């Protein structure tokens, strides 16, 4: 695979790892957050953290769109899926996310018609193939996936597909980052910026991080070499006393983003006053809903949903884990009430979440430190 293999080259990786080693101040501990779940996945898949010195620690951020969906929203989805005649469609990794009484996978086993799709257009196709059924798409994701939902809704309206609607749980990346940064106990030195989101919104929206909070940001690509290089760039900023937004992913991310995608988002969606995040609570202007013009395609208006807020269990400390204040094992419910098989918080839901990773690989990670 040309243009991909080059970014997975082990000898180049070793060279950048050497550069990182030369940039760190002896005795200092660095905490760098990778905001995006896609980065977490690459770090895990390629063993990127294994190439870092032990005093450079990667903290997994709030950018896994599946893990941040709160229980109440999952319950709303299941309530619609259980309505007679409904075909409920969603992305595969949403199926396992627990609501207050089970997941969509369990609702499917209990008789609901829940189908996995790979794109919102697949959901629209199912609607056209089943004109006598109501087809609902559970839309999730950051600005990365929101444009494809928006285009699907535009097409549904243009083609007059009446039996299609969408329960919108799209979220935006900047508000949760600001919420994290506002926290007085935050212990992070810099951010690996979300490259996929930035292809849509650009690098500009992250300028507030260095400007208002004095932390470096490097927007990064998703190959292992991209990630290593972005860490080196953050460490170089820290070493040189600079603090700015840099774009490591220039081959894809324009500074101003993708204006056409942004126009479509503005047409189809509007900001919700508040949206709840699993583990982080309510964050203002962090969620999207369908705009007035698209209200007829809004599943939350078409169906009655419980809309009940299910509080995160009090003992769950995902927020603190995300902020880097505590380690997963320091959480009160870690490994007892909260396990990968029965997760409570966002950090345990995804196999790459900080808590799930520690649960599964903790002993191995510790051995690394000893070596």
């Amino acid at each position: 695979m040309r243009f991909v293999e080059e970014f997975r080259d082990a000898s180049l990786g070793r060279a950048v790892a050497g550069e990182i080693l030369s940039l760190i101040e002896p005795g200092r501990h660095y905490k760098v957050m990778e905001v995006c779940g896609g980065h977490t996945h690459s770090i895990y898949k390629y063993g990127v953290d294994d190439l870092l010195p032990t005093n450079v620690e990667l903290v997994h951020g709030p950018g896994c769109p599946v893990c941040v969906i709160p229980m109440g929203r999952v319950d709303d989805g299941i309530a619609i899926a259980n309505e007679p005649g409904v075909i409920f469609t969603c992305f595969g990794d949403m199926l396992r996310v627990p609501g207050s009484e089970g997941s969509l996978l369990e609702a499917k086993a209990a008789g609901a018609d829940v189908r996995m799709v790979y794109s919102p257009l697949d959901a629209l196709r199912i609607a056209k193939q089943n004109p006598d059924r109501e087809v609902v798409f559970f839309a999730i994701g950051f600005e990365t996936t929101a444009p494809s939902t928006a285009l699907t809704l535009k097409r549904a309206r243009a083609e007059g597909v009446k039996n299609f609607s969408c329960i919108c749980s799209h979220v935006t990346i900047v508000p949760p980052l600001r919420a994290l940064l506002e926290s007085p106990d935050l212990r992070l030195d810099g951010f690996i910026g979300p490259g996929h989101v930035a292809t849509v919104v650009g690098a500009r929206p992250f300028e507030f991080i260095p400007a208002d909070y004095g932390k470096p940001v490097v927007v990064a690509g998703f190959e292992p070499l991209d990630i290593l290089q972005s860490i080196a760039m953050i460490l170089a900023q820290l070493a040189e006393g600079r603090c700015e937004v840099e774009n490591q992913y220039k081959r894809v991310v324009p500074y101003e983003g993708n204006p056409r995608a942004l126009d479509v988002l503005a047409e189809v969606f509007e900001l919700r006053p508040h949206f709840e995040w699993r583990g982080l609570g309510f964050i203002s202007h962090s969620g999207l809903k369908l705009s007035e013009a698209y209200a007829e395609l809004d599943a939350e208006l078409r169906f009655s949903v419980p809309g009940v807020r299910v509080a995160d269990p009090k003992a769950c400390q995902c927020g603190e884990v995300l902020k880097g204040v505590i380690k997963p094992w320091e959480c009160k419910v870690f490994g007892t009430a909260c396990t990968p098989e029965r997760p409570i918080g966002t950090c345990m839901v995804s196999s790459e979440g900080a808590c799930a990773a520690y649960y599964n690989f903790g002993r191995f990670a510790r051995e690394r430190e000893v070596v």
Partner: protein
Amino acid sequence: MAEPATVSAREERILGIIETARGKRAKFRDERITMAHGAGGKATQSLIEGLFVPAFGGETLSRMSDAGEITVEGSELALTTDSYVVRPLRFPGGSIGDLAVNGTVNDLAVSGARPLALSLSLVLEEGLTAAELRAEVKAIALAAEQAGVEIVTGDTKVVERGHADGMYICTTGLGQRDRRASLSCANVTPGDRILLSGSIGEHGMAIMLARGEFELDAAIESDTASLWPAVNALLDAVGPELRCLRDATRGGVASVLNELARSSSVAMLVREGAIPVHAAVAGAAEILGIDPMYVANEGKLVAFVAADAVDGALAALRAVPGCEQAAEIGEVRTEPPGMVLVETSFGGRRVMDQLVGDPLPRIC
């Protein structure tokens, strides 16, 4: 500096609790069966260890090998059974009929038993065309002939339209233990080498693409084939040094390695770069966000051999048609017990865990 000591003591204690919990026999606590219970990962394991084994008990079953051993008047036999529920019935490289023969034959072969006879149960859906049935009967007959097994008994049931996806097949296989080796996962010891008989992920990927759920076209064919020729060659070449064999079906090579690491309390270290994967499979897996190590094979085995038998075993395997790409992919170690580690091509190491449920494509 008393603080760090107590902190690490607490961390140690919590790691201990987790390890105890993971070491315990999996419990079956779910209210209903979900698709995850059939995917070959942790949920399947909870069903087997938490419900079936405690209920049926016997010593042979609790060993949980691919085939059960029975001794009849000094004759050592192996018995195995499997159901085939694949959709679509025909796919590039094979069909449900091929799988029904080869899958069961392979469970016998990797247990170190020469396949002798098969039973064949057909569950047919009302409305299935005679042409489809004839095609599968032909496929079954041909696969049985190629694998050198005789179909000695059978059964037919028909269910109403809307059930059974056209047809389900269940086969039971009887084999005779081969005396050239004594295979058992208990034999796997640190220092042993891990061999793979060929490229991985073709069957699972061929099925996923044949279902037409992705708008993705690639020339990928199922690898369905009898493994007896490969096993036979290994037994001939390095019988006494052969520790254990597994066929890497549902859950892929990753699941086989995890099961063995757990049951034998050893660690495995696998070199990602050494694992043969066809470019088309690698490409499709990349697009779908699926790791080929977790994708099903229907004609690939994982062999554990003593270190000094590697060259002989590889030479023997590579001489078998379909196993030309056989490779040494890693080794068995002591630490950390129960875990499979991967040395990635990029130069990092990571843990390759057991699947929790179906491999679901990622969105981000």
